[in-house]
């Protein structure tokens, strides 16, 4: 092992430890790591910056712009409150419907955004019904990670995989949405069994909820109509991606900029400061730089060889290995830094396996394992941390143990279903 490799390994491990242990703001850790590898001369600045996947970066910025406008229309709050009213205030019905809505919204808005919009509303509803919101919040965090797995634009690991490979929006839809739908249905049944008889609501508290005037939430019908059209066009563009030959980032930025032009023209600076999460953006940039140093120094190659050897070069075994390994590791490591390191490794594996068709299930295993593994523990996915954070600021403490006890059941179940799906469909 050369001195270069030692430095790289040291920077990589230290950065990831700082991120996992939360000893430092994760963006700061990633940026320091990213520039440390340039400073120590492991890779040139030029190469480090070239390693940043700008398609991912601009896709994220575009989506943040889209969401900043969509949020203003009040449509998400409308949906959530309408749902609670349709459920006639019955807790178990609200819980299962919220699970499904969280999953569906996460598939298109991303898990973190969905949780940020829906958790406050659920806290309000539970407060009115005088029931504990904790099971709602845990199950919604779980649903958000499942939903995010279903599409290319859902969870960040998927957009990173989509950007690094030739897979289109439709490829993700064909290959990942079916297992996620099955997993979600099974999870809803599990929730029904777990919480069916646990919550009671008085008629008086129910009446308070039913008196909500959710129709007042949509204040700007014109904006809602316009943004629905833009959203629809964006979806069509994503579906026709292989025909149109437009990259994902361009589609998202076009949608984001048009919506910005339509609604917040006078507040562009505010949107850029408040609605674009620059911390996340620079976190990604730093990670891409660090991972590039692993590629250049040959670590990724060593890891890829290791996986190939462990699986005896059989795609089926490699696929299962990746699924369960990703599931276990991304329960401990935030799934973005995890998948950032895994992507070049799987790319490297393809040079050893040398059979494009055999690589498909391996990529889908990586996505399923990484996204669904996030449910394993409280720190497995950003959505969990955000949901639990909002709850704790409102006086509902959810411990690591409390989350993990429930999360691990759903994760194990999800990975089991994913294994069966992968084995039946691809081998």
């Amino acid at each position, binding site marked *: 092992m050369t001195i270069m490799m030692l430095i790289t390994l040291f920077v990589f491990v230290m950065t990831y430890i700082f991120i996992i242990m939360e000893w430092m703001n994760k963006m700061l850790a990633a940026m320091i790591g990213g520039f440390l590898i340039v400073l120590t001369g492991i890779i040139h600045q030029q190469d480090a910056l070239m390693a940043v996947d700008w398609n991912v970066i601009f896709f994220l910025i575009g989506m943040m712009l889209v969401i900043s406008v969509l*949020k*203003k229309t*009040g449509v998400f*709050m409308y949906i959530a*409150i309408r749902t609670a009213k349709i459920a006639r205030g019955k807790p178990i019905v609200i819980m299962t419907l919220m699970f499904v809505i969280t999953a569906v919204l996460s598939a298109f808005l991303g898990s973190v955004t969905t949780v*940020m919009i829906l*958790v*406050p*509303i659920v*806290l*309000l509803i539970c*407060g009115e019904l005088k029931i504990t919101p904790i099971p709602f919040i845990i199950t919604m965090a779980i649903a958000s990670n499942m939903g995010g797995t279903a599409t290319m634009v859902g969870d960040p690991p998927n957009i990173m995989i989509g950007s690094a490979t030739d897979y289109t929006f439709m490829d993700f839809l064909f290959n990942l949405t079916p297992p996620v739908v099955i997993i979600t249905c099974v999870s809803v049944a599990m929730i029904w069994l777990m919480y069916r008889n646990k919550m009671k609501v008085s008629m008086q508290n129910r009446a*308070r909820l039913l*008196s*909500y*005037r*959710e*129709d*007042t*939430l949509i*204040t700007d019908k014109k904006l809602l109509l316009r943004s629905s059209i833009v959203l629809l066009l964006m979806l069509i563009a994503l579906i026709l991606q292989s025909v149109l030959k437009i990259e994902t980032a361009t589609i998202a930025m076009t949608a984001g900029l048009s919506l910005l032009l339509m609604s917040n023209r006078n507040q562009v600076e505010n949107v850029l400061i408040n609605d674009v999460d620059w911390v996340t953006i620079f976190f990604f940039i730093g990670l891409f730089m660090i991972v590039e140093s692993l590629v250049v120094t040959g670590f990724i190659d060593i890891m890829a060889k290791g996986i190939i050897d462990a699986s005896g070069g059989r795609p089926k075994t490699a696929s299962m290995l990746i699924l369960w390994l990703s599931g276990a590791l991304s329960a401990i490591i935030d799934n973005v830094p995890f998948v950032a390191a895994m992507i070049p490794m799987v790319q490297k594996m393809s040079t050893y396996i040398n059979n494009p068709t055999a690589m498909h299930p391996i990529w889908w295993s990586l996505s399923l394992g990484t996204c669904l593994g996030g449910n394993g523990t409280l720190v497995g996915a950003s959505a969990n941390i955000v949901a639990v954070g*909002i709850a704790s*600021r*409102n006086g509902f403490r959810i411990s690591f143990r409390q989350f993990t006890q429930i999360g691990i059941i759903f994760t194990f179940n999800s990975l089991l279903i994913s294994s069966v799906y992968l084995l039946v469909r691809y081998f």
Partner: protein
Amino acid sequence: MYLDSFLDARDICVNPDIQNKEQAYSMLVDLICRNHKLPICGEDLLQRLLQRDAEAPTAYPSGIAIPHIRMDDFDDILVAMMFLPQPLMFGTTKVSWVVLIITDKTSSKIYLNLVAALMALSKDTASVQALTTAEDAHAAFSIIKKLGISIKIDLYVADIMNINTVTIPPEATLRELIRLMGMHSLAGLPVVDETGLFVGEVNILSLLKVGIPEYLTRMDNLDFLVSFEPLERLLEQQDELQVKDIMTLQPIILKPETSIMEAVSEMIKHDKRYMSVVKDNKLMGVVTAKDIFHKVIQA
């Protein structure tokens, strides 16, 4: 700069034969118009003085009245003084010393420092006694000259802050806070512990925040909540929660030696109308945007 540099013995009037405020002003106007060339003079000036007086009284409890006019097409600072051995009632305030100040429209800083110096002097009873019993204008002038009162050129937060501020200890309950805020109609106040150390600030919004769950502040629109009991939680918890639970730790503060410009800039930057003035962790006073408005802009 010294106070006497702004003065001329000709503009001082000692022991005049007058009965009321109007006569006092009229005599000062005559005096100043005789000795100086002014764009507005005589009856016009007197009327403007009385009109301003009606808007905001110029007499202070320390027994000094400082009528002031800002004049267009004029570029100087003129001071005329009148000493009254028998104090007169200016409204409800007993006045034994009237100082008329005429300035141009821009020199508000010097004017404010002039007023500050005069105010300080008016609290020095021995000197005021000497001045009001001075034999003639020249005697009064030399007393002032001898006192050597300097006029500060710069104005600092310490010059305009309120010293006798209402404070609250960190252990006080929210009920006490609500009572104190109501009684003094305050929108914010500094939190000071029993040893006199400044520990933070509470304001009306940190109080109201108790009444609204945090999750509601995350929603863009709350119009749908027709039945939500407003601020129910605040009333329920007012005996349990203490000031230290809701106060702002390490708020933006000013130092006594901060300039007024800096203070205004800080207020604008942080959208904060209320600033604690702190030195060595001790609260020295409080400055509000309203103070700056009244004491600097309207002065």
